[in-house]
């Protein structure tokens, strides 16, 4: 892959002592035998990629206004830089994982809360995943929330 074609993604690079210009090759001035050779001081540059934090303190509660709506919130994750960034939310019940809040890995939201509507009665936990370009970081699931059927009007 050519560098010019590669899409640069923002990542933190620590540049250590590499920009020091003008390193000279100091040679003996006189003729000291059949040949000479010399080695300049090496310059080392360390590259470090950033990382994506997982959403912490996710919480889910039944909405006060609607019995079939669950409000989910979590702590903000620092945006690592330019590029696509956001969250998607999943609803877990037993071994079943369902998309929640209208989100998915390809349909992210950038807020730190959402409402999951039209949730059928049952017991659920919620999980929030941060996405930055091709990186993901999944937070811990919320505590269980039990939704019970409400009598109609």
């Amino acid at each position, binding site marked *: *892959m*050519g*560098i010019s074609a*590669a*899409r*640069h*993604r923002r*990542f933190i*690079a620590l*540049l250590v002592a*590499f*920009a*020091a*210009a*003008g*390193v*000279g*090759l*100091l*040679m*003996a*001035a*006189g*003729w000291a035998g*059949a*040949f*000479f*050779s*010399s*080695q*300049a001081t*090496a*310059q*080392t*540059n*360390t*590259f*470090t*990629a*950033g*990382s*994506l*934090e*997982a959403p912490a303190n996710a919480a889910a509660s039944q909405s006060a206004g609607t019995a079939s709506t669950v409000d989910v919130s979590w702590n903000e994750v620092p945006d690592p830089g330019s*590029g696509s960034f956001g969250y998607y939310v999943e609803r877990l019940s037993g071994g079943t994982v369902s998309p929640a809040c209208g989100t998915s890995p390809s349909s992210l939201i950038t807020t730190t809360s959402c409402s999951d509507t039209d949730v059928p009665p049952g017991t659920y936990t919620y999980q929030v995943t941060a996405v930055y*370009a*091709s*990186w*993901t*970081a*999944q937070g811990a699931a919320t505590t269980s929330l039990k939704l019970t059927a409400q009598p109609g009007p």
Partner: protein
Amino acid sequence: MQCSFTVTYNGTMPAYLGLDVSIAGTKLGTDPNGNVAGSYLYDSSPAGLQLLIRDNQSPQVTYMSGTTLGGSPTSGSSPDSGVLLVSTTPFTNGNSVTFTVDYSLPSTTTNAYQDASSSVTLTADAAQAANNGSTAGCTPGQVCPGITDWS
């Protein structure tokens, strides 16, 4: 992103210059989801660190492009180029050359590279042009078999 390294030849005898590129993994990445093993930032794969090392000569010499170093694909996380010839023309006192390093992490990189590190070390070498082999048939940016006594 780019960084640079300028070398000035201060010897009195004409000399060939060489550049050694050495890469080393310094920290394995950490997948926050725990699904994949960590990788060093440079691992010779299209998903890891990509480097472009060139100089300011005319015509410009490329020493490394992506994961190709000295004209050959690298393997593993710690490749070393050996001494790559800078020019078939000897340098004289006061001549300078600036090497630049461009770097990128492809957007297709994976979680295995999060928080990973690698270091790149450039070392300039010189060897007196006279009485020291030949650059005939050599290509700048690649190892020159005719010069074996760099340092």
